[in-house]
């Protein structure tokens, strides 16, 4: 807020407050003076303000939604939320407009003779239950499946898992988080044995240097990036952008370093080499808290149907690890990666400096990677070797892209191998879940079935006959999309889609169920920093729209599982959440009670003795540490984290003479996921009306392409024509192109490759070979 010079006293008072606030901020990092911030927000007298987590990305900003006469009319950042401290991004500020698109689905639609016919909710749910029973009868339990998402609320995912795994008895439960977070999960599991970040957003207030690994944070996690910029103004921290493309983030950073796609593996190893070679290893930390492992190499890329891979971890020692790294001297890696030895040493020097606290941040660049698990492991290696982990400001931090990828998919466990607590392969875990679910333990199969890509392949092959898709849009997001779209349209497949707007996915549906979204129902989300947040229903859903949770409960009842789905309509969210909490009733994962979540902007698990845990594995902050040492990596039986020997291996499909360019895909700040919500928000659509292809200016000049010209991209999967964008939002390196994936009218995923990380099964959307021509 500005002060005016005309009132000198007021001005002096303001200066006095400012200096006191600055002093307080240096003494207590992360301190908040909410009252002062709230003064600046316009307050409409007759609006009713209620708190919710934002509907969009995984940052999980606290927002206050203003309603008037049963309609949501305004949004402001919640100054009390420790996540965003009152700030939102353009999507958050306009999020409520996503409720009011003109073509909102309000009635169930059933396909009869190629035409969609309106019907009642009762009838549609009857049909879904009937079809499911019929499919089970004629094709077996493993012929029915559910495909959800990281936008499922916690109760949605819990009801789905209980119905399919516990009651029906199939592990055909997957979610789109497989396409975005699976490598982060396997990274955590292999390095630490327990999922999700050890640190939290407060690390930003303590760290001295920020490394962004292939993460265009200024556009994708803008509110967190603002916190970085804020710290730079106040404390002069350093931001280093390590990426394959020049973006807004590169421009805002102190240093931008570009590497060739896939070679982040080599660079991470080179940083480890430098750390060891210069004696920067925190020897006592490594001796006390780390083991060294190596796994299988040359794993392949999962391009063929029924591809299977299981890693075989093998213990090695520090000498062997050191020997392995000799292939990764900065001078050697420079040739592979295109990153100069000087820049590698520059990065290593920051990581190695014992007086610098380091935060590494990443998201899809490292997760959607054909060696996604490895690169996650490698970044943890750097933090483990230097002991810069699990303490304020020292934090390898895996960001998420969906509001509840952590809360629902990872914590409730809506993946084929997962249970809310533990995995289906473990008998004890099955028994534990069966008891809470009130089902016979034999119901839960001990073998995982299909991961996402394989699930859609099974649908194409006919192994799966019935699929229920909720809150996601696979007919825009699947790689090598055409195969899976054609597969889903085959005869003898029954597809149910629950959504709020018509999308390319509802186009392939046999039944379309209208859903109640976000604040049209009660629910809970869990964000990247283990924060669970509750929101109340604030407005009525349109027409017959119904929450995904209640749709599942209704179908479950119709299938004869009234005993397990005993919930009452008025209180079902509370009942489900309380039941779900029983699965995590231990010091390592305890969830906060609902009353707590209702009263404040979320709480971070493990929530023990009425307190959120900010830094896990650190005895000072985490009550689950029990080995009597400073750190306890209790996810692993011996309490030690693992430093993995992981080599550099090339991507599944690299440019060659026929397809000489790299194709990279991603997002833009205005649109979220497949744009089915954000494109219906006029402000966002006006700013970014359609997809485009970014070229490097030199390539564009050689091909005589100018901004707006049509460009034809061809891969081995097909071709697409897009308008060119040169020197605009971002600039890819020479011989690379970038296309955002939000545009359902320009489906870039028709030509991407469905290679995936063999360990996590997460596809690599960032790399395939493409030919570029002026159209």
């Amino acid at each position, binding site marked *: 807020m500005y002060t005016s010079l005309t*009132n*000198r*006293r007021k001005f*002096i*008072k303001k*200066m*006095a*407050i400012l*200096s*006191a*606030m600055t*002093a*307080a901020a240096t*003494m*207590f990092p*992360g*301190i*908040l*003076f*909410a*009252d*002062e911030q709230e003064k600046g927000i316009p307050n409409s007298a007759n609006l009713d303000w209620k708190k919710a987590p934002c509907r969009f990305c995984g940052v999980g900003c606290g927002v206050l939604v203003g309603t008037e006469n049963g309609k949501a009319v305004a949004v402001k950042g919640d*100054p*009390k939320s*420790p996540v965003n401290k009152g700030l939102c991004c353009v999507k958050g500020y306009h999020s409520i407009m996503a409720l009011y698109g003109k073509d909102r689905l309000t009635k169930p639609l059933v396909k009869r003779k190629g035409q969609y016919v309106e019907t009642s909710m009762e009838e549609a749910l009857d049909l879904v239950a009937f079809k499911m029973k019929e499919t089970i009868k004629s094709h077996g339990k493993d012929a029915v499946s559910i495909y959800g998402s990281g936008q499922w609320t916690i109760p949605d995912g819990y009801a789905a898992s209980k119905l399919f795994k516990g009651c029906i008895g199939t592990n055909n439960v997957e979610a789109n988080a497989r396409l975005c977070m699976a490598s982060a999960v396997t990274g955590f599991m292999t390095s630490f044995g327990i999922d999700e970040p050890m640190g939290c957003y407060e690390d930003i207030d303590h760290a001295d240097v920020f490394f962004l690994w292939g993460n265009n944070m200024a556009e994708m996690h803008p509110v967190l990036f603002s916190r970085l910029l804020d710290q730079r103004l106040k404390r002069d921290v350093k931001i280093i952008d390590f990426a394959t493309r020049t973006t807004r983030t590169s421009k805002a950073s102190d240093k931008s370093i570009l590497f060739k796609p896939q070679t982040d593996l080599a660079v991470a190893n080179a940083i480890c080499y430098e750390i060891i070679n210069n004696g920067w290893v925190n020897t006592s930390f490594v001796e006390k808290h780390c083991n060294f492992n190596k796994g299988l190499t040359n794993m392949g890329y999962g391009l063929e149907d029924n591809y299977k891979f299981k890693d075989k971890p093998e213990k090695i020692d520090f000498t062997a690890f050191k020997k392995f790294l000799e292939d990764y001297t900065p001078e050697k890696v420079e040739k592979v990666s295109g990153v100069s030895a000087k820049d590698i040493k520059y990065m290593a020097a920051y990581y190695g400096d014992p007086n610098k606290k380091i935060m590494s941040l990443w998201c899809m660049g490292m997760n959607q990677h054909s060696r996604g698990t490895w690169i996650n492991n490698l970044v943890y290696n750097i933090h483990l070797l230097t002991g810069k982990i699990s303490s304020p400001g020292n934090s390898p931090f895996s960001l998420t892209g969906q509001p509840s990828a952590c809360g629902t998919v990872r914590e409730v466990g809506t993946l084929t191998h997962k249970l809310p607590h533990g995995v289906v392969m473990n008998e004890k875990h099955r028994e534990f879940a069966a008891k809470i679910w009130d089902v016979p333990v034999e119901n839960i199969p001990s073998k995982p079935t299909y991961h996402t890509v394989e699930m859609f392949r099974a649908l194409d092959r006919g192994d799966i006959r019935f699929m229920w898709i909720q809150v996601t849009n696979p007919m825009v997001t699947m790689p090598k999309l055409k195969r899976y779209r054609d597969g889903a349209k085959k005869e003898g497949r029954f597809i149910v889609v629950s959504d709020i707007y018509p999308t390319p996915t509802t186009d392939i549906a046999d039944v379309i169920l209208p859903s109640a979204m976000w604040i049209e129902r009660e629910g809970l989300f869990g964000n990247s920093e283990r924060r669970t947040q509750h929101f109340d229903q604030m407005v009525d859903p349109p027409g017959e729209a119904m929450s995904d949770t209640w749709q599942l409960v209704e179908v479950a009842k119709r299938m004869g599982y009234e005993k397990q789905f005993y919930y009452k309509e008025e209180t079902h969210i509370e009942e489900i959440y309380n039941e779900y909490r029983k699965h995590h009733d231990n010091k390592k994962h305890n969830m906060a009670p609902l009353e707590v979540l209702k009263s404040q902007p979320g709480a971070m698990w493990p929530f023990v003795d009425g307190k959120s845990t900010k830094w896990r594995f650190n005895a000072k902050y985490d009550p689950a540490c029990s080995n009597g040492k400073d750190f306890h990596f209790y996810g692993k039986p011996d309490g030690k984290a693992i430093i993995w020997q992981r080599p550099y291996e090339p991507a599944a499909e690299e440019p060659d003479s026929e397809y000489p360019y790299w194709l990279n895909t991603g997002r833009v700040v205005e649109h979220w996921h497949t744009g089915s919500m954000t494109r219906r928000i006029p402000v966002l659509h006006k700013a970014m009306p359609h997809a485009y292809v970014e070229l490097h200016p030199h390539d564009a000049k050689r091909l005589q392409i100018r901004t707006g010209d049509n460009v034809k991209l061809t891969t081995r999967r097909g071709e697409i024509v897009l308008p060119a964008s040169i020197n605009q939002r971002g600039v890819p390196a020479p011989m690379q192109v970038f296309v955002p994936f939000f545009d359902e009218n320009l489906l870039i995923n028709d030509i991407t490759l469905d290679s995936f990380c063999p360990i996590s099964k997460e596809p690599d959307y960032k790399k395939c070979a493409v030919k570029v021509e002026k159209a």
Partner: protein
Amino acid sequence: MPIKSYLAHPHSGKKNELIEALSSIEQCEIMPAQNKEVLILITETEDKTEEAMLKEKLETIESLKLLAMVSGFNTPQNN
């Protein structure tokens, strides 16, 4: 007219009492931190004698552990 700003640290668990005590004093304006045990205190007095009296008054508050001055200004009477 002296204007001064302080960081006021309450005894542990007595933040609310301190807020109450300080807000009852006319010359004091406070801004409590949302998430830490500290609050900002701004005092505005007419002259040095009043300032000294206020200081004495503040020292008698029981819930106050420590008062650290951050900045002080003095402005002429007329505006």
